[in-house]
């Protein structure tokens, strides 16, 4: 059983782009340990001879004719954005000063 430490949770939060507080990291460390311990029972029956199922009903790759369909206008696509300019989504700088 791998150890779930505050450092592990902090790393996961960074990967998931959630700026957790110290309190949240502490609480999640305990909760995650319990949950992982409980769900780890799947390894008991997942023997090498059992194939994995990713999808309940097998369907082939679905394609459609390569023709223009009904799509959103630029205005509709931008309508819910927190900020936009010149027909584009507007965000803070991508790179920090040290980069």
């Amino acid at each position, binding site marked *: 059983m791998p150890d779930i430490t505050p450092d592990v949770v902090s790393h*996961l939060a960074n990967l*998931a782009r959630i*700026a957790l507080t110290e309190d*949240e990291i502490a609480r999640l460390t305990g909760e995650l340990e*319990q949950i992982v311990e409980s*769900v780890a029972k799947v390894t008991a029956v*997942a023997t090498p001879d059992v194939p994995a199922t*990713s999808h309940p009903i097998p369907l082939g790759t679905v394609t459609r004719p390569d023709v223009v369909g009904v799509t959103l206008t630029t205005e509709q696509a931008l309508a819910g954005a*927190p900020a936009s300019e010149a027909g584009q989504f507007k965000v803070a700088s991508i790179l920090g000063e040290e980069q």
Partner: protein
Amino acid sequence: MSLDLIRSSAADVAAALEAREVSSVEVTQAHLDRIAAVDGAVHAYLHVASDALDVARSIDERRAAGEQLAPLAGVPVAIKDVLCTVDMPSTAGSKILEGWVPPYDATVVARMRAAGLVPLGKTNMDEFAMGSSTEHSAYGNTHNPWDLDRIPGGSGGGSAAAVAAFEAPLALGSDTGGSIRQPAAVTGSVGMKPTYGGVSRYGAIALASSLDQVGPVTRTVLDAGLLHDVIGGHDPRDSTSIPDAWPSFADAARAGLRGEGLKGLRVGVVTELSQESQGFQAGVLQRFRESLALLEAQGAEIVEVSAPSFEYAIAAYYLILPAEASSNLAKFDSVRFGLRVDVPGGTVEDVMAATREQGFGPEVKRRIILGTYALSAGYYDAYYGSAQKVRTLIQRDFDAAFAQVDVLATPSAPTTAFPLGSKVDDPLAMYLNDLTTIPANLAGVPGISIPAGLAPEDGLPVGIQFMAPVREDARLYTVAAGLEALLEQQWGGPLLAQAPAL
């Protein structure tokens, strides 16, 4: 005119509308009045449509002009807030989407509008459908109409409470691990999770894409069939949508109401989901067994079947769901829609992290972190990979069971509605509420929950669930309607007639 506008079934309201004994404006107004009277106490709705009466009036005008309308035209419907609606906010119960009005309708919503149904509003839910009590909504919990101090189930507690409190005759839900069926069970209503791919998910805000399914939430089996007929069928906009033609589910329910389908029916009782030692409340098992006895008396054969891998279903589910959710919820990034928390001098990454910290509630964070863990290098094979193998084993258990029986029966939930606040801080205890519903999602098979009576010890509703092989949704409607008719004969009317006045 003797029709009770809010307590009648959607089928009866539709017949009265068709016969012009009543107008859609009258029916819609009656529901808006009911919402105004009781929703302060129930809190089933997050948003009430401002134009419902206008929509109703246009249906009345079309009918008056002699237009031939679809069977449910003019009947009001409530919509779970996970479904996109162009004219109402769609938040999925999350602060990160507060006030967001989508630029398109979910396919199921578009189909209901085309069939002339009248949207009443959007119903409350656990944030991004993560929960079994609706207590994880960012907008306050919904109350169970049978006892306002108890949970209405979840994640679709709002839709279930809306129909149970007569605030809507019909509602839409979504079911990833039981979010339609478990709320139905604890509120004395009917909830159907169709075969995976049977109903379009286009415009349903995704939780776990290999599990999610949209379906009807109603007070009768026939009403669920009528609504399923409107929303179901192939949708080219959902690549997981099954292209097959489907029979009429309303007709399947009517066959059940006529008493067809029970004689000779083989009903499987799952050994692993029917014992008190597995956490089932005594009154839940009592009503479950009484329902089986009723079926047996009509010529059904009760067969005990074993599904040994079901024991691992919750564990597999709480790896697969968080893994898929952590990926699906990456789209809430402060760029294209929803909340943005400004970080002075910060990069877009800082803004994303601050936004997601403020916009997501505790259960959503818990599951995203768990999913990120399950998918991370070094653990992927042990956790996510093993969970996918368990999924195969569970499908094999279903295949073996359906080689012996026509339908499987289980209690819909291990207990009746529990008190608000009693499990909200204990994630593992909360996850156990979906013990009986999760296997169907993992295997993609359809499942329906209908009321089976009140538990003697607490007087609260108990649900019985039926499951059928993939694509055999019609069989569920026939069997469930058959049992519903037998039970209502015993009760002298619908179970919800026994609910306390609000």
